[in-house]
């Protein structure tokens, strides 16, 4: 692996007696799109602001491109930030906002103008240079904030929930644009978000945080499919939790006797340590399928529909199966009539016995 662009080691941050960050360590590779994901109040912003230089860590080290930045002010760090409320200067035009940080470089007026219009073109605001901040929509403000930071060509761009203030449709459009922009400029992005879909869609890697600690760092697919703990699994979409008795253990998987589901193979997440004879198991709702035609497979269970929520393209069902305490969550596409299933209907659910994951508690 190449040297990391950001290397955070055993970072701690306390506010009085309250500890907002506990021994956070992580590396971000050059050119990577890295996300900090977690519920509100878990310390994402604190971590991001520590990288930017707005918070002074209580202990630990942050290196950017090999150099420790501890003790350096934000204006001495090779980072730039897109603030959650965008922080567009209201007394300046769009072009003046973008040129704000360039003034220090003492470029020739024509060179400065060229770089400003290049940055504005990059965020598709080419013709908005003369506008005032008050005349811009939320999405446009966000683009100005991006252009203002990117025009300085920082080594790292830090983004604090940049999309959370936008409405859903605009947010989805901006996700696509943000990803494309990051590929085009090749700058390392660190994004803070509490939206798991945003993190999954945008990131090369995700760090999931809870209560000031990093719970797991992995690629979106790895984190979704092989969450290391119950908490991570639950935060990233729905999960059916079961428990089972361990029959056999190999380096990568467990063979588990899981009650009504019979003997299943569960992937062993990295760092899994067996604590006893039993283990928690999870299976994602979309990994359970309703059998519309009777099928002769041993991997099926019988259940009754207790509740359903209609989402247009999919229906989320709660199905009570014999021998299980909790109803199972099942997500079905609406191609086969899941949206027409009445409450109380009896269905057969098929599952892949390899689709289970073992979870540390």
């Amino acid at each position, binding site marked *: 692996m190449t040297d990391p662009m950001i290397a955070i080691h055993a970072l701690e941050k306390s506010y009085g007696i309250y500890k907002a960050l506990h021994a956070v360590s992580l590396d971000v590779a050059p050119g990577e799109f890295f996300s900090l994901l977690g519920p509100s109040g878990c310390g994402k912003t604190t971590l991001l602001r520590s990288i*930017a*230089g*707005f918070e002074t860590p209580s202990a630990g080290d942050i290196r950017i491109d090999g150099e420790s930045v501890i003790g350096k002010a*934000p*204006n001495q760090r090779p980072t730039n*930030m897109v*603030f959650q*409320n965008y*922080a567009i200067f209201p007394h300046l035009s769009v072009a003046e906002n973008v040129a704000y940080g360039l003034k220090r470089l003492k470029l020739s007026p024509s060179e400065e103008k060229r770089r400003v219009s290049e940055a504005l073109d990059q965020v598709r605001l080419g013709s908005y240079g003369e506008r005032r901040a008050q005349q811009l929509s939320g999405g446009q403000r966000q683009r100005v904030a991006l252009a203002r930071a990117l025009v*300085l060509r920082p080594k790292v761009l830090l983004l604090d929930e940049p999309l959370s203030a936008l409405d859903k449709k605009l947010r989805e459009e901006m996700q696509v644009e943000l990803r494309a922009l990051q590929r085009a400029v090749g700058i390392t992005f660190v994004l803070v978000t509490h939206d798991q879909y945003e993190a999954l869609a945008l990131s090369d890697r995700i760090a999931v945080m809870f209560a000031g600690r990093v719970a797991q760092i992995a690629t979106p697919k790895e984190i979704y499919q092989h969450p290391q703990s119950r908490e991570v699994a639950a935060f990233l979409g729905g999960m059916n939790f079961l428990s089972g008795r361990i029959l056999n253990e190999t380096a990568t998987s467990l063979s588990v006797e899981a009650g009504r589901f019979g003997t299943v193979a569960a992937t062993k997440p990295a760092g899994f340590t067996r604590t006893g004879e039993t283990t928690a198991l999870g299976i994602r709702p979309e990994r359970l399928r309703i059998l519309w035609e009777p099928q002769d497979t041993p991997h099926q269970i019988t259940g009754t529909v207790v509740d359903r929520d209609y989402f247009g393209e999919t229906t989320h069902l709660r199905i009570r199966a014999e021998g299980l305490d909790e109803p199972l969550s099942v997500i079905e596409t609406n191609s086969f009539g899941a949206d027409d299933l009445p409450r109380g209907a009896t269905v057969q659910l098929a599952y892949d016995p390899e689709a289970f994951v073992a979870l540390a508690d």
Partner: protein
Amino acid sequence: MAAASPGREPDQSPLHRTAPAPGGWRTGEAASGLALISPTLLYAAFLLLLPILIVFAYSFWTQDFLTIDHTFTLANYRAALTEPIYLDLLGRSLINALSVSVLAVLMAYPLAYFISFYGGASKNLWLFLITVPCWTSYLLRIMSWKIVLGYNGVLNSGLMRLGLIDKPIETLVYNSNAVIIALLHSWLAFAVLPIFVSLEKLDRSLIEAAHDLGDTAVQRFLRIILPLTLPGVTYAFLIVMIPTVGDYITPKLIGGSDGVMIATAIQAQFGKAANWPLGAALSITTMIAASLLAGLVVLVGRRLVRALA
């Protein structure tokens, strides 16, 4: 209409039926608005506009012993603008008021800045403490400056005790400087408040953004904080400058003959000299001169702030 989606006639929706009905403003929104503000409007007209109009009218008339000659004349203005004594007093009033208001803003800004940025949970306490001097009588405050600045005053005896001077400084009181000091003390608290409010309204993330984009502390102040709190500074300047031009009590009590200001002359015309039209013309002239000067300072101030950014 570009904003309307095709195939829909926005003006036919029932919500738009209440829009201006025929019959003009009397039935529209404007009428209910006027009705709502009319008590205050009448009150303001009666107490503010009417007195000024009366003074304005007087300034074009002539005093004829005990009666008023109502023929239109500009003689009062001629006197107000050519008599050296009046020009002198007006000039001194403007200079004193300008000094007081500029000094007040310069001293109030750091105070307001400190309270807003470092006041923490005790901001209100700090503000309260700043207004404490205003709780004592205006007269008492001016008289105490006499005690501080007087020949045998606190300042002189203090300096003598310290051995810094051998005999009391005589030029501390009964001149323009004493007037400026006393006025500054009276009005400083009023300058702190508007600046404080505009600093409070300033979004702190803008300052952080400037820091992030490379600014030093001084640059952040000049490029972000000062331009964005300029409305508060302007207001603070005006709120001190306008009333101090016409201040009467302070120069009277501690200004001596050297510190007399225009209000004394105006008072004399309405009192002993009994020439109300000349007094009115002096008042109007002072008002216009003060407004022009204030406007000029505000414009120059804005230019200056823009140049510094």
